[in-house]
């Protein structure tokens, strides 16, 4: 963007001096590209190549019973998009990802607001609230699996000891309860991310504006809505999109806690793709599935990039 901006000004310079300067600028630009070339090459190799390969593979059938692959055109896409199971899994994915994201915000924003108030011991509090985020997802999944366990679980044991229930609640073994139970784990794990991002945003809100609004008689709620939120809007949007994308692609928590069950009630996109590829050995079909999911996620990624570039433009 910078170079494009400098371009016309250089061209406007007349004579030999101008031409020399233009050459010097051009070599500067070339040097810039040379600097990023190694990173770009690595990116093309480790990201671009798998994407292109997946796309190519998605047009082939790769039966587990035969070596090689067979051209099937859009056959794999047709198979997926006409299967009722894909739509069930998509519903599960949306049911998992959207409430997970919204609830992480519902917890993360108040936590950030509280931490921004300068409470005594807030550093310690911030550290404590960050713990779920820094714990490995695998560890968290196993800990929660045991907390929820119908026969050994602490949650059921505690509720039964209090006399609130007479039979264990089947958090992970009931098709209706399993996704809400998994969402709780995911929200617990990801709300600190929202908290940190929001806290960073809150620290950019000019204190004078808040003070001026207070002097003008604005209540705390009005100050929040009319001064703080406009400043946070971009941060919140970017965080929301990032978290949503991450939840749409999430694998670890449902896989380790339920394996996609019971009765596929917690089967989400990533688990479905994994099972088609590595349990059914239908890599072509899994590639087509991945491409479809990639296209959907790309929409959100586009919104994310647009929000970022808009932010840059504002600056």
């Amino acid at each position, binding site marked *: 963007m910078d170079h494009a901006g400098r371009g016309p000004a250089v061209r406007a310079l007349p004579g030999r001096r101008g031409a020399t300067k233009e050459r010097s600028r051009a070599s500067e630009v070339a040097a810039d590209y040379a600097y990023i070339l190694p990173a770009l090459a690595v990116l093309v190799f480790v990201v671009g190549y798998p994407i292109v390969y997946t796309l190519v593979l998605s047009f082939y059938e790769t039966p587990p019973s035969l070596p090689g692959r067979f051209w099937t055109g859009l056959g794999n896409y047709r198979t997926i998009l006409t299967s009722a199971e894909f739509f069930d899994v998509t519903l599960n994915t949306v049911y998992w990802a959207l409430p997970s994201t919204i609830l992480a915000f519902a917890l993360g924003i108040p936590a950030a607001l509280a931490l921004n108030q300068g409470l005594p011991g807030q550093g310690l509090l911030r550290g404590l609230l960050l713990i779920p985020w820094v714990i490995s997802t695998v560890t968290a999944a196993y800990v929660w699996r045991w907390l929820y366990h119908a026969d050994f679980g602490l949650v059921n044991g505690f509720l039964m000891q209090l006399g609130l229930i007479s039979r264990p609640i089947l958090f992970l*073994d009931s098709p209706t309860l399993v996704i809400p139970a998994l969402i709780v784990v995911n929200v617990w794990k990801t709300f600190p991310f929202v908290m940190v991002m929001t806290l960073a945003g809150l620290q950019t809100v000019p204190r004078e504006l808040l003070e001026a609004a207070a002097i003008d008689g604005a209540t705390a709620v009005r100050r929040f809505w009319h001064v703080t939120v406009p400043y946070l809007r971009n941060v919140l949007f970017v965080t929301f999109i990032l978290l949503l994308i991450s939840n749409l692609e999430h694998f670890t928590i449902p896989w380790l806690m339920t394996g996609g069950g019971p*009765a596929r009630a917690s089967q989400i996109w990533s688990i479905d793709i994994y099972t088609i590829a590595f349990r059914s050995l239908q890599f072509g079909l899994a590639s087509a599935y991945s491409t479809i999911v990639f296209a959907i996620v790309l929409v959100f990624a586009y919104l994310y990039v647009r929000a970022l570039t808009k932010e840059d433009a504002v600056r």
Partner: protein
Amino acid sequence: MGRISRRQFLVLAGAATGSVLLAACGGEPAATPTPTAQPTPTPQPSGQSTAPSQAQASTPTTTEAVDIDLSRWSPDYVREIAGTIGETDTRAFVSSVVPLETTGNLSYWYIGPAETDPQISKDFDKQFWDAWESTYPGISTDVQRLTYADMLDKIRTAATGNAAPMVATMPILWGVEFAAKGQLAEISPEEFGFKESDFWPGALKSCRWQGKLYGLPTNNESMALIWNKQLFREAGLDPDQPPATWEDLVIYSKQIKDATGKYGYGLVARQNHGNTPFRFMPIVWAYGGGAFDEAEESPTYQSTLINNEGSIAALEIYYNLFVRDQSVPASALTNTNAENTDLFFAGQLGMYIGHPSEFAVMVDRANKATGADKERALQLLDNIGYALLPEGPVRRAVVLGGSNIHIFNERFVRGGKVDRTAARAFIAFRCSPEWSIKAVWASSNPGTLQAFGTSWMQQRLEQVRFLEVTTAMLKYGVPFPVVPESTQIMNIIIPDMIHNALTGKMTVKEAANDAAEKIRALMKQRPS
């Protein structure tokens, strides 16, 4: 503002994370704790001490020394034949296959003992490699020891990228996928000094694809029914009479639940997990069902039997246990067998299906317990029984597990070359009676039938309690269908069917029909 420095924050966060991690580790069941039940007078490999010329002169060089009558196979017969041929001479045997002076190169992958495995398994693994090196010092061997969880993805990727090892030992269900893709080399038992009759017929079946042999069994295993005699007593059942049929098992399970409030039977139905089909398919076969006709003498795998009367009856057994009687753990749909072991050890479960090694695991736990817990654990150990799996109206059956050893096709091997002579020497050595038994001492059974007659088998029977029962179940072993689609059928379609029926998403019949439809659709995808 009560700020803390970055260092302080790291210390605090580290401490807190550490405590949570510790809690997590403590909360999980030990997957395979080290059994201490076995006294460990680790026998020395004979290959290390015997000179080849002496060995050749004094011992037979074939594996025909023992005549095993499979029709008499039972716990008593297993004890009867153990020790009848003493120790075999491995050097003599392998030297008749490939001369000991042979030089060459070999790359080999296998699932080696994990950190949590009993020390005796690690000791034998080390002895195996020492013995191999001293037997064939001229063959340079590049070995990769992998875990069960890692190996399949790794070897698939390697084979796809033409970087497979020359030889690999893989679980019984995996080989057919590689054979179907042309990645394995065809072999004959004779080139390794064996005959087909040296192996379990069912195990050899798992090495065949389209009539050709692509591997040899290294070890075979089967499971048995484990029961808590004390809970049987408390429920008014005869503590020495385990259920003879699957229907009896349903009745016993309900009686235990009703009388004691504890769970009767350890049903396992986690989705996408191998434990699920390993415990369900024996019932299906017992009632005359199957994914295909894999339980028959000469299966054709042409049409699915998953919705025939037998398979539906088997699914009804699960339905009655879980939905009607609620006599199995409430967490059955997400449980693996590890949870059953915990429940059983805690005295909360009457019966479950398990390996012989589970007793050793419980002994180890009892040794580690203290105070009242120890007393309770020791009491439990005195009250454990192992029995053959119950029968159905058609047969008694169990999944034939284990591993096979394969040679990869040159085209898929790193460097594009297989040193077939080195591979032959290694496979002969690995499948020899001595190493087919020592390499799986605490965990499985030898793939070579002759090994059951050795004195090493006798030692195992003394060390591993109830081994004769699980070994006797080999006779009833049925391998999973030897088709490349087997992993999908067993890991996805079968568990889905169980979940559909047990969660009320479908009726038992609908769930079976749905599974049949999925299997048919899957098989239709196979290009002609």
